[in-house]
């Protein structure tokens, strides 16, 4: 059986709330990062508040609907980002959201590696039928990365976000289990 948590560039880990809070507090100060990742108005929370939020999550115990990973590089064990899954148990599909807080790791294949690891986890460990995600139209780097991983563009909700006085679309993508399996079989030829 494969090691599900080890990719080619990164590995999935679990970090303690105080470690996570420290990193997230720093990453959230990069407003470009936050505005690429989120659609809520960017705001700044104290490290204390962030830690309290993680503590609360840890207290409620593992839930089948929610998976949260921290991401470290294999090369030098740098804590560079996170990946979260929200599972719809009834319909066997999940939403994924990921972020690389450390800028120097952008555009170097780390995002794709994280997503590939996630796809493997979703389809071979969680046994789901579909993985979905949304992204801003002004995030072409992410779009390219996800297309490379096998996601298909399924549409765009028109002008549903507004930033810097400009209306932007949100893009929606999805990948089905059979599509992912086909990609895997293709690789093995």
């Amino acid at each position, binding site marked *: 059986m494969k090691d599900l948590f080890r990719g080619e560039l990164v590995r999935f880990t679990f970090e303690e709330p105080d470690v996570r809070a420290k990193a997230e507090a720093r990453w959230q100060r990069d407003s470009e990062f936050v505005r690429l990742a989120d659609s809520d108005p960017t705001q700044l929370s104290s490290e204390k508040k962030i830690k309290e939020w993680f503590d609360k999550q840890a207290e409620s115990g593992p839930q*089948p609907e929610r998976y949260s990973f921290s991401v470290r590089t294999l090369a030098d064990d740098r804590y560079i980002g996170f990946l979260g899954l929200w*599972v719809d*148990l*009834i319909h*066997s599909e999940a939403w994924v959201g990921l972020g690389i807080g450390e800028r120097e790791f952008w555009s170097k294949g780390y995002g794709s590696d994280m997503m590939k690891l996630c796809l493997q986890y979703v389809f071979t*460990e969680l046994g789901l039928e579909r993985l979905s995600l949304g992204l801003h139209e002004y995030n072409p780097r992410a779009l390219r990365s996800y297309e490379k991983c096998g996601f298909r563009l399924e549409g765009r909700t028109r002008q549903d976000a507004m930033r810097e006085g400009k209306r932007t679309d949100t893009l929606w993508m999805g990948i089905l289990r059979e599509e992912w399996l086909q990609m895997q079989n293709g690789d093995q030829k």
Partner: protein
Amino acid sequence: MKDIFTGKFVRLSAFDPEEMSKAFARWNLNSEYFRLLNSSARPMKSAKSNIKWMEEEVAEMSLASYYFSIRTLAEDKLIGELGLDVVDWAGRDAFVGLGIGETEYWSKGYGTDIMNVLLRYAFTEINLKRVTLTVFEYNPRAIRSYEKVGFRQEGRRRHALNREGQRWDELYMGILREEWMELDHQAPGAGDGG
């Protein structure tokens, strides 16, 4: 979309804590009923003590637990209860438990009808891959009813029960989604357009 609450004789209805706490207290006075459903003796519970756990379970609306009351189509009479508890989502398996508290409805096909409705719900609304149940060796009526619906005996906990000076097995039965789908179940009482 098909109607999945209605069977041939019964329909699934709300599990209202106020109503069911009283019904449970009443049905469990019948020791035969109690002994067919419960593996070991328990103190009798009043409606008041039942209502607390029922309210908590029902309020939670967990995706892993489903409770129904069972009512007859003919007279809208409350005759029993049904519960479905997901064991784990990876295996998509759930335990089902059902009890017909009004004993005059035993051995009339009601149990089979209820189970068919339940399986339709389990496989086409919760999208499970299998359903499991446990039944006591000394309950042949239920075993036959479940086999008729398509459950297969999968194992037993030998001598797990101790009653009337004898030891009895607890049987595990299961049915797979593919098996149930193949059995060509119609939805009686629903406008079945396929």
